[in-house]
């Protein structure tokens, strides 16, 4: 009878359960994290850029609108200050065209200007003496 090589015989094979003492590979985790961040970064960047672009366009539109409204207001002011409108409004509130003005020639000199309290007068500042030129001491050394 041929002996059959059966090294394990009936011995039970152990289940391939990972060893409970296996440790997490920190470098691997770091690499995975880095890869995840790298993947997310362009998405975030793109999103931010789009959002900023939208804000910018919105602000530009607002600026254009505000400029347009300023223009409308300016033209309103121009219309309200036209000669014809001023004259019409003046008549509405009862004003009448002016007669010849009377010019009065006064030979007496006018009153002296009112004196301001000293606290309102400009503070007198001492004039800073200009420094002597660099060659002056040299001249002084001369006999």
């Amino acid at each position, binding site marked *: 009878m041929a002996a059959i090589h059966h090294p394990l015989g009936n011995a039970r094979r152990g289940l391939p359960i990972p060893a409970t003492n296996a440790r997490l590979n920190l470098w691997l985790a770091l690499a995975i994290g880095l890869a995840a961040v790298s993947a997310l970064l362009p998405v975030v960047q793109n999103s931010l850029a789009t959002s900023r672009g939208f804000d910018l366009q919105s602000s530009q539109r607002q600026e254009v609108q505000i400029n347009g409204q300023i*223009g409308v207001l300016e033209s309103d002011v121009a219309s309200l*200050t*036209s000669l014809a409108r001023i004259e019409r409004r003046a008549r509405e509130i009862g004003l009448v065209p002016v007669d*010849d003005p*009377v010019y009065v020639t006064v030979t007496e000199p006018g009153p002296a200007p009112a004196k301001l309290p000293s606290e309102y007068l400009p503070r007198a500042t001492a004039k800073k003496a200009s420094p002597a030129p660099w060659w002056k001491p040299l001249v002084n050394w001369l006999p």
Partner: protein
Amino acid sequence: MAHYQAQGTRRVWLPAAAFGLFALAICGRLVQLQVIEHGRYAAEAQKELLGDDVIYARRGSILDRNGGVLATSVDTWDIYVNPRAWKDDAVAQKAAQDLSGFLKLDSQQIRTTVKDAGQADARVQQDLDYEKGLALIKKGIPGVVALANTARITPEGDVGASVVGFIGTDNDGLAGIEAAYNEALKGVPGRAVYERDTTGDPIPYGQFRTTEPKRGEDVVLTIDRYLQQLAEQRLADAISEHRAKGGSIIVIDPMSGEILALATSPGLKYSTLQADLSKTDDPDALAILRNRAVTDLYEPGSVMKIITASAAIDAGVVTPDTTYFDNGEVYIEGKVRLTNWDNGSYGLQTMTGVLQNSINTGAVFMEQRLGTKKFQDYLIKFGFAKPTGVDLQGEATGIFRRPEDDGYSPVDVATQSFGQSISVTPLQMLQAVGAAINGGNVITPHLVKAHIKPDGTRNEIAPQVVGQAISTTTSDTIRHMLGQVISQDPDGWGRNPAKYTAGGKSGTANVPVWGSYNDETQIASFIGFAPLENPKILVLVKLDQNADLMTGTQAAGPIFAHLADDALRYLGVPPEKDNMAVSR
């Protein structure tokens, strides 16, 4: 062990070669499309993808000398419809109805406009009010595009229209200051480039790039809007009263050449502009675009005696008190007889008397004392026969005949001394008389006082003195001689202002028709200044072909007198007559 190698047969090689050639052709075509003609196809793709529009810059305002607005721009919208978005009948009908509510146009009319435009965007309204345009954009009607534009408004109505001018639909100036200063006023247009969808509408949040438009400069005129209005009113009244065909009233500051008011008739009016321009069958319709004060020539008549006297006194050949005997006529080269305007004779006269009585023979006397060359040299010095350089387009040069010209006769220079055989523009005459009374300085008359850049920087335009025609002493003398012309009338009568001292001279010139003069058509004018010692205003009043045939003294003189009183009072110049002095 035996090794077998496949033998190529025709059945294998032929298809392989065919496929190979086909692949090569495809590769070649790809190289052509993607490498050789990359630029062209990329540009075409961009063109299809991107739309672009011009963004008009806001045109600068035109202000009077005190900042009053004569013309300004307001933002508006031009409304376009993209016909590709209106292919569907139901969509088009609904959109046209919505649009008609904003534009106050019939919806059918809008659809017709869009259909007529074919494939191109159809402009259904120009210059829609800004606020209405914003509401329209908010409504978001399919295919409707609002493009920013600007419209010109003139708060003073027709006042100063012939000076300010107008612009075309492309925002370029076509007449007046609008045309002369178009480059400064219009600014630099911008450009908008945007991604669009298949219907041509901008894609929301798509790529959008703009070149910002740069606003135009504001232009500050020397014109005073109150004086301009006054001059226009007085001119209209005078034309009506004297049944004239037209005329001009121009007020300038003789010391600086600044034009304070420039009224001409016929002239441009915004209120009738559309109707005037649509008269295509009337050859004279476009004549309203001319500013006659700079484009039209006339013979000044006796006003020219101011220049003749200035030249003669400056050259030292006469003084104001030099006398001569007027027998009412003078013969040129013993053949041609020249007479006075009234065919009268005034006997012994001084040179001041020549101006007071407007004696033609006296003017010839002064010219003959000067000699032809010297007299005409003075005409050149005073700025005749050359443009003044005023900042308006189409200025006429003027002309007078000189000895070297064909057909010259000594009669020409003799008659030039009293304002015939010489043609001038009203502004040339003002420039010359201005030089005669302001100390001798020939100053370019001008309409623009300053430019204001969009950042608020103001650049003043200094008066330009182009020459010295006569000495200061001569100028003083002439001023007083002209004062004696005016003071012949009592204060407040005729050509003498009621409140101010003044000087001036009238002119009445018959209009030359085919080489001769017709007594039935004349130009009556008066040129005067006030106050006498320190002139603030120099005024030319000119009436063309007044049917009542009143002379310059009778028709134009009183207009000057009243205008001088009113204008100087407005300018705050204390009156010199009836002035109350109170001493304490």
